[in-house]
């Protein structure tokens, strides 16, 4: 067993005399001096300068030589380059571990992705490509990308203005990037890192967690899962609400009485009570049933009167039933069991005053049959008072409240996906 070797070797830049580090000897082909920007040929023993700096030197946010552990593997930053496709700019850090090889840390200025070169060829099935039986969808068309700045060491002959053609394929959280030039075609698999993950691993200030701006092509919508959950919960809740309301909505019988109403225009009055309403406010449903009427109607005036304050809540209903023959066709109409509702009745003890007036209808005139022969037909009318009832307005309001959040999430999700696809949306229209 030999003495552990130091992977870092100090070299002197033949152009500026500055000390530079060689961290991956044997693999490294190009070194760009971090002091003067000169590109040096690492495969020549004397580090022959290949190109002078064409851009002003700058320091990458993560310094060369920084080490950190990402997804269980320790990496050292050995190279940094910036690229552009003349639409967006991004930067890439080259990471090295002597036992693991290389990885790329791609920074789109919002989030980081960790990339590894694929050692297998993706398969093509229909419009999408597959790696390990997982499908990826093409994201836009092939585009050109240029290197705009470079520093550090690389295992290929890197140069500013170096151009490659890139085709991206995405699925939420992962991107496959195919880079081609005349000599080779490489596939990189990029995994989107969590907010703050790379920053913590490589000791740089944490980025603000934000879903605004243009998302990464492989960025999963942060609203996707929330939206699905909220939609399921919202629909179940709305369905349950509707079922409960139509099944009786917690209706409770409060009082019931039957009164006989003469159909001769004479008013019959009945006081039903006491009716106790303990809740802060209560909805009341008053249902009438006058099965005995035929070609007659009964006007029903209700007054719900508070015994203590004499405050009165009024409502009106008509029980009616008609039939006849017109142009040889028989017809039947009317509702002998009308219901009315009073909402938001304050707590207290009440009496319901019912005033009923009955009339007989004929196709020619309204008659009061008692004038001729003293027999006055009387019809029993049953009045039921119950708590609760379906208030369509309230139902709609509740449904709106229930579905508000899911709808907001759907709109946000659509907005996010629209922004994510914006860079390639125009191409699809062409």
């Amino acid at each position, binding site marked *: 067993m030999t003495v552990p*070797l130091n992977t870092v070797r100090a070299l002197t830049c033949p152009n500026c005399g500055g000390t530079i580090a060689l961290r991956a000897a044997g693999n490294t082909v190009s070194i760009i001096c971090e002091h003067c920007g000169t590109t040096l040929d690492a495969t020549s023993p004397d580090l022959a300068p290949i190109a002078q700096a064409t851009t002003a030197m700058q320091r990458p946010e993560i310094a060369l030589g920084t080490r950190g552990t990402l997804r269980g593997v320790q990496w050292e930053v050995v190279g940094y380059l910036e690229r552009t496709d003349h639409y967006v700019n991004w930067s890439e850090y080259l990471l090295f571990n002597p*036992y693991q090889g290389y990885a790329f840390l791609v920074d789109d200025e919002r989030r980081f992705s960790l990339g590894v070169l694929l050692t297998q060829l993706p398969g093509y099935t229909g419009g999408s490509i597959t790696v390990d039986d997982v499908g990826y969808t093409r994201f836009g068309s092939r585009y050109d990308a240029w290197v705009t700045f470079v520093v550090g060491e690389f295992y290929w*002959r890197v140069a500013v203005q170096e151009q490659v053609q890139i085709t991206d394929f995405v699925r939420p959280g992962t991107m496959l990037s195919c880079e081609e030039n005349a000599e080779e075609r490489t596939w990189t698999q990029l995994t989107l890192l969590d907010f703050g993950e790379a920053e913590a691993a490589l000791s740089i200030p944490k980025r603000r967690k934000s879903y605004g701006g243009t998302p990464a092509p492989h960025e999963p919508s942060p609203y996707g899962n929330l939206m699905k959950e909220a939609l399921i919960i919202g629909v179940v809740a709305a369905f349950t609400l509707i079922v409960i309301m139509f099944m009786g909505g917690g209706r409770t019988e409060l009082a019931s009485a039957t009164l006989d109403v003469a159909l001769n225009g004479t008013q019959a009055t009945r006081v039903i009570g006491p009716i106790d309403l303990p809740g802060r406010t209560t909805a009341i449903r008053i249902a009438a049933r006058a099965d005995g009427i035929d070609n007659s109607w009964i006007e029903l005036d209700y007054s719900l009167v508070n015994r203590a304050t004499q405050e009165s809540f009024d409502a009106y209903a008509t029980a009616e039933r008609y039939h006849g023959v017109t142009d040889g066709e028989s017809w039947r109409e009317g509702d002998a069991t009308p219901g009315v509702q009073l909402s938001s009745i304050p707590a207290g003890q009440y009496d319901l005053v019912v005033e009923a007036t009955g009339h007989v209808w004929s196709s020619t005139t309204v008659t009061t049959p008692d004038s001729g022969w003293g027999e006055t037909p009387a019809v029993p009318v049953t009045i039921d008072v119950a708590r609760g009832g379906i208030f369509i307005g309230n139902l709609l309001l509740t449904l709106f409240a229930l579905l508000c959040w899911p709808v907001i999430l759907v709109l946000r999700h659509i907005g996010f996906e629209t922004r994510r696809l914006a860079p390639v949306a125009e191409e699809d229209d062409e």
Partner: protein
Amino acid sequence: MIDATCPNCGAAVHFRTPALPVKICDYCRTTLVRSGEVLQAMGKVAEVPEDVSPLQIGTRGRDGMGFELIGRIRMRWSGGGWNEWLALFDDGSTGWLSESMGHFMLLRAVADGGMRTGAVRSVRDDQPVVIGAEATIASVKYRVNDVKDATFVGSEGELPFSTPADTPIRSVDLMAPGGECASIQKDRGEVSVYAGRYVTLAEISATNLRAFDGWPLPSFAA
């Protein structure tokens, strides 16, 4: 094990297997070619330049059966360099662990040379080979993913052939969707075809790796 003495410097020379005719003397770096009992000195080869490869002569691994790395050739092309490590398997057969940019290909020679494939014939006839071209070797369908013109830089240990500096070599690498890979090499007029797959050091349970200051050995190798 065959023991001999370097005819150039007199150092002891050990051959691990009688199957391999070439050994680079560990001391004077002379290429020794064995023919029967006779050792012939064939000129010096350069030392392999110091690199940060995790592999070394004596690194062991497993692929079905165990193997040990007993030789190494350093290759160079215009875009960089790579290592070809010779693996001696426990059954006496040999293969190559090809190391390039942190990736490893475990390859074995394909017996009939796969001459039916167009890509192999193109290499044999010095015709251009196109990136992305299909090639079927030992019934696996590959695509060419790079073509390099290289030379030997240096070598060490036991080898199946000598590695004189500046020998022009054409090297074509191929990949397949299942992670299989292949390599076509033309060296001094002779075409060889190798096939295998990409592996990680964890997958071959590599041990006796080189230790580096400040880098913990991977759990499988420690």
